[in-house]
C-alpha cells in the first residue's frame, strides 16, 4: 500500500446524529464500504486524512416502500438490492446494474450512497437513478433536503452536497414503462464501464447515459425526439449532440459515441 495509515484519523459514529455532528465540526470524509476509498489509498491518490466511519449505522440500511416511493437507505449494499423483492418489483433495472458492479465481494460492501457520493461518471447505479428520477435525501444537523439526482452533480466528481451532509436515503418514485439497463465494458464482471445506459420505455421515454460526459447525462432532447415520433436514426443523432465523451485509458470518444447511439437503438428495439 502506497499510503501509510499512521497519518490517518478515523472516528467511528455510533448513531446518525453522532455522524452528522462530527461532519459539522470539521471536514471529515464519510467511509461506508470503503471500496472506492481504499483503491485511492492504495494508489497514493487519496487526499483526505480525516474520516468518519458510518458503516455501523444500521438505521441507514433497509429497503421499503413509503407513499408509493421505493426508499433505499444510504448504506444499502448492492447485494441487498439484488436480493430485494421490492426492488425486483419496482426497479428491476437497478438489480441488473447492481449485478454488474465488481464481483460479489464488492457487491457485499459497496453502498448506493457511496456510489452516488463518489461521483464517478462511470458509476453503474447512477444512470438507473437518473432514468428513474430518483431523489437524494441529504441530512445535516437539524435539517434535511431533497435533491433530484438529475440536479445533484455540478461537474466532474462535484455535486451540490455540502461537507456537513450525508446521503441518508434515495427515494425512487414509481416507474411506469419497461425498464432497460446495459453496461458495456471489457468483461462482464470486475470492469468499469466504457458506456453505461438505463432507459424507460413509456409514452414519455427516459434515457440516461454514464461514462460519456463529466457527469451522468439525462438525454432530455433525445427523449423529446422519441416522444415526438422521431425515427431512431434522428434520435441517435440527437443523442450524439447531447453527450461529450473523452478518450481515456478505458476507451475512445469515437467508440463511446458509436456505442451510446447503438445502445439507444437497442433499447428502442428491445422494449418495443
Amino acid at each position, binding site marked *: *500500500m502506497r499510503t501509510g*495509515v*499512521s497519518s*490517518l484519523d*478515523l472516528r*467511528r459514529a455510533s448513531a446518525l446524529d453522532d455522524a452528522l455532528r462530527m461532519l459539522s465540526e470539521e471536514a471529515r470524509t464519510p*467511509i461506508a*464500504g*470503503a*471500496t472506492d476509498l*481504499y*483503491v485511492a489509498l*492504495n*494508489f497514493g491518490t487519496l487526499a483526505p486524512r480525516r*474520516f468518519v*466511519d458510518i*458503516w*455501523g449505522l444500521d438505521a441507514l440500511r433497509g429497503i421499503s416502500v413509503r407513499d408509493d416511493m421505493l426508499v433505499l437507505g444510504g448504506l444499502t449494499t448492492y*447485494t441487498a438490492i439484488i436480493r430485494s423483492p421490492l426492488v425486483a418489483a419496482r426497479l428491476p433495472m437497478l438489480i441488473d446494474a447492481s449485478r454488474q458492479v*465488481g*464481483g*460479489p*465481494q*464488492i457487491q*457485499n*460492501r459497496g453502498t448506493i450512497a457511496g456510489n452516488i457520493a463518489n461521483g464517478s461518471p462511470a458509476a453503474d447505479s447512477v444512470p438507473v437513478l437518473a432514468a428513474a428520477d430518483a431523489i437524494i435525501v441529504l441530512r445535516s444537523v437539524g435539517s434535511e433536503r431533497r435533491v433530484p439526482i438529475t440536479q445533484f452533480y455540478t461537474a466532474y466528481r462535484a455535486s451540490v452536497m455540502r461537507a456537513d451532509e450525508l446521503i441518508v436515503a434515495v427515494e425512487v418514485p414509481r416507474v411506469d414503462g419497461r425498464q432497460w439497463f446495459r453496461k458495456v465494458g471489457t468483461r*462482464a*464482471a*470486475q470492469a468499469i464501464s466504457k458506456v453505461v445506459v438505463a432507459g424507460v420505455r413509456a409514452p414519455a421515454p427516459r434515457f440516461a447515459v454514464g461514462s460519456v460526459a463529466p457527469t451522468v447525462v439525462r438525454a432530455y432532447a433525445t427523449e423529446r425526439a422519441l416522444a415526438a415520433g422521431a425515427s431512431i436514426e434522428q434520435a441517435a443523432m440527437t443523442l450524439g449532440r447531447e453527450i461529450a465523451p473523452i478518450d481515456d485509458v478505458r476507451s475512445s470518444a469515437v467508440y463511446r459515441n458509436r456505442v451510446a447511439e447503438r445502445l439507444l437503438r437497442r433499447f428502442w428495439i428491445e422494449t418495443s
Partner: protein
Amino acid sequence: MRFTLNGVATDVDAHSMSRLLDVVREQCALTGTKEGCGEGECGACTVLIDGDPVCSCLVPLAQVEGADVETIEGLGGDHPLQHAFMSEVGAQCGICTPGMIMAALPLAPNATLDEIKVALSGNLCRCTGYAAIYRAIMKARQT
C-alpha cells in the same frame, strides 16, 4: 480491537484504518490470504466477514470489530474444496487459490455451474483459466 478470527477471539493492536489483509497476514501471521492487486479487482485477498465474501484489502480494521472473520486457515487442511482443488488441478501458481476457495465457500450444496461462475466472478486467475477451478468446485459439491 477485538474480533473473532477463524473461531478464536482475537485482540490486535493496530491502526483502525489498517487493511484487514495486513492485520491478518502481519499481526496474526496467517499468510494464506494473498495480496494480488490491492484494489478489489482480483479477489486473491477474499475472506468471509460474518459469512460474506469481501476483499480484505478494502476493509479497514475498525469495521471488523466484533465481527466473525474467516480466512483460508479456518478450513483446516482437510476441506472437500481444498481436496478438490488439488485433485482437479484447480491451481497453478496458487496465488488466487485461497481467494477462490473462500469465494466458493458460501455456495449452496446444489449450486449450478452458472451460480458458481457468478460467485467467482470477483476472482481472477491468470494461470489456468477457470475450467479446472469450476470443475473442482462442482466435484467438492458431490463429496
